[in-house]
């Protein structure tokens, strides 16, 4: 697998506080990498290091194969980012903000600005200054600024924080569009897990500055797959029945079990009756990303 970003034992210390504590992660090319963690887990710190806003205390990372200890700035020309709040001039219009970024990058002419504004849904803002934009519009303008250099790697730090439901949908659709149509790899940090689960193809779970688990959405789906949770008089009898019909299952306790795969309730009821096992209840059950995350890092909060 080809990776755009690989971090190796990254550490970042502020005084005595370890914001990153030996973080190693890999972002595959073409993915939407969901970077999940509580507030203060180290998500923004990592993004700041990748963007060159701060320097690691120890460890290193490679971006497009260029090591952070070497000529990383050339590799950074292929990326864009929105860190925390959108970086835009509030006294300028959306178009002027993009023109300004074009000048910073050194793109001759302003071709493509109209398309960028259309892409983020800000083509009709005219002479309205960014200070009069809604939070969602500012966020989309921030993403447009990040897209100015035609990057193929986009870092978005909490891009839906504070947005209304409409704004969340707009930003989500924009990210999916960028990934699918322009093949842009996206690293997106968030603690809004439900929203992230609609986007991410890969996940990295961070806690206290360490990467706890890195997993693809496909594998995560398997781990959190849907099942039927049944309550019976005796799970030993249930196991015999399920073995006989060849179903996959997991015994939770003496009376509860999870059954995976499609199953006819009528047939199961009949089979259980024949095995002298009473069926008390059946519920559809699936482990959410939220539950998976809590199981992974523990329930206590460090907010």
């Amino acid at each position: 697998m080809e990776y755009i970003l690989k971090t190796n034992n990254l550490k970042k210390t502020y005084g005595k506080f370890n914001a990153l504590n030996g973080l190693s992660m890999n972002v595959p090319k073409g993915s939407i990498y969901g970077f999940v963690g509580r507030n203060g887990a180290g998500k923004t710190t990592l993004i700041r290091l990748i963007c060159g806003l701060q320097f690691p205390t120890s460890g290193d990372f490679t971006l497009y194969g260029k090591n952070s200890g070497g000529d990383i700035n050339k590799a950074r020309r292929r990326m864009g980012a929105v860190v925390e709040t959108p970086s835009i001039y509030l006294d300028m219009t959306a178009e002027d903000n993009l023109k300004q970024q074009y000048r910073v990058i050194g793109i001759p002419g302003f071709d493509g600005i109209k398309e960028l504004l259309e892409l983020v849904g800000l083509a009709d803002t005219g002479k309205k200054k960014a200070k009069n934009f809604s939070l969602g519009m500012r966020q989309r303008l921030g993403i447009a600024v990040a897209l100015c250099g035609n990057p193929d790697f986009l870092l978005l730090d909490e891009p839906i924080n504070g947005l209304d439901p409409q704004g969340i949908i707009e930003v989500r659709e924009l990210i999916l569009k960028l990934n699918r149509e322009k093949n842009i790899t996206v690293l997106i940090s968030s603690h809004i897990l439900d929203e992230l689960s609609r986007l991410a193809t890969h996940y990295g779970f961070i806690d206290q500055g360490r990467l706890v688990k890195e997993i693809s959405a496909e594998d995560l789906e398997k781990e959190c797959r849907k099942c039927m949770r049944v309550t019976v008089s005796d799970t030993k009898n249930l196991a015999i029945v399920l073995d006989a019909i060849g179903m996959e299952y997991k015994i939770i306790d003496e009376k509860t079990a999870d059954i995976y795969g499609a199953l006819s309730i009528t047939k199961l009821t009949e089979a259980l009756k024949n095995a002298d096992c009473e069926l008390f209840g059946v519920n559809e059950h699936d482990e959410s990303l939220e539950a998976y995350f809590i199981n992974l890092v523990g329930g206590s909060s460090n907010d």
Partner: protein
Amino acid sequence: MIKLLRADLTRMRKTKGFWVCVIISFVLSVLNSFIFVIDIRTAENTANNILYGTANSLVLIAVFIALFLGTDYSQNTIRNKMIIGSNRTLIYLSNSVTVTIGAFAISLAEDIPAIAAAFFGKSFGMTANEFAFRMFIAVCAVIAMSAVLTLLGMLITAKSANTAISIVATFVLALGAAIILDFLNQPEYLSYAAFVTNDGEEIVDESDSTPNPMYIKPGVKRDILTAVNDVLPTGQVMQLETGSLHNKELMPLYSFGVLAVSTAVGVVVFRRKDLK
């Protein structure tokens, strides 16, 4: 560097705060020169009026630089330069050159009415060469002061704190320079007895004179204060304002030194600075 400079200069051109400072500088100078023109028949040294304005524009320059550099931090737009891989040294230098050009524009807005008013004066007060050299000293002092204010603006990331510190620092440096100059220009005696002989020669009787306690005798203390006032851009501007320049030939060199040291310190610290 050219890309960043082009972007920064365009932003400065579109910044309201910059034009407000230029207009205020111009209006203050017009008011000052207008009053000066009223007294035109008695004006003996119109050149000093032009040089006098540099001190007034320093505060406006401090406000402009703090607001211009502070905006990049307060609106986080400095990130846009770093994320795409711009070199930190070049970001610093581009900002430094941009605000220096802005500072020139503010000074020029102050100079134009003063120069126009000089044509109405009774006497210019100095030779063209002397005036040109003193203007050169003023220009160098503005460059040095801009470098000091850029150092503050690039290292203090909170816009309001930076603005307050820059303005206070400019006032303190200007006031300090004025106080030092006042000490250096104190006469040795407060009063003295003098006799005029029949030949018209004046003889001073020092035994009957009152020594000035504020006078700083020649020695290490006087040398240090003189050096400080010659090196500080505000000290140079104050000397231009009063017309009494101690080491005018060295002043451009001192300004270059302040520029070099401020920029070197700023670049070194900014290169390692953690930004949010």
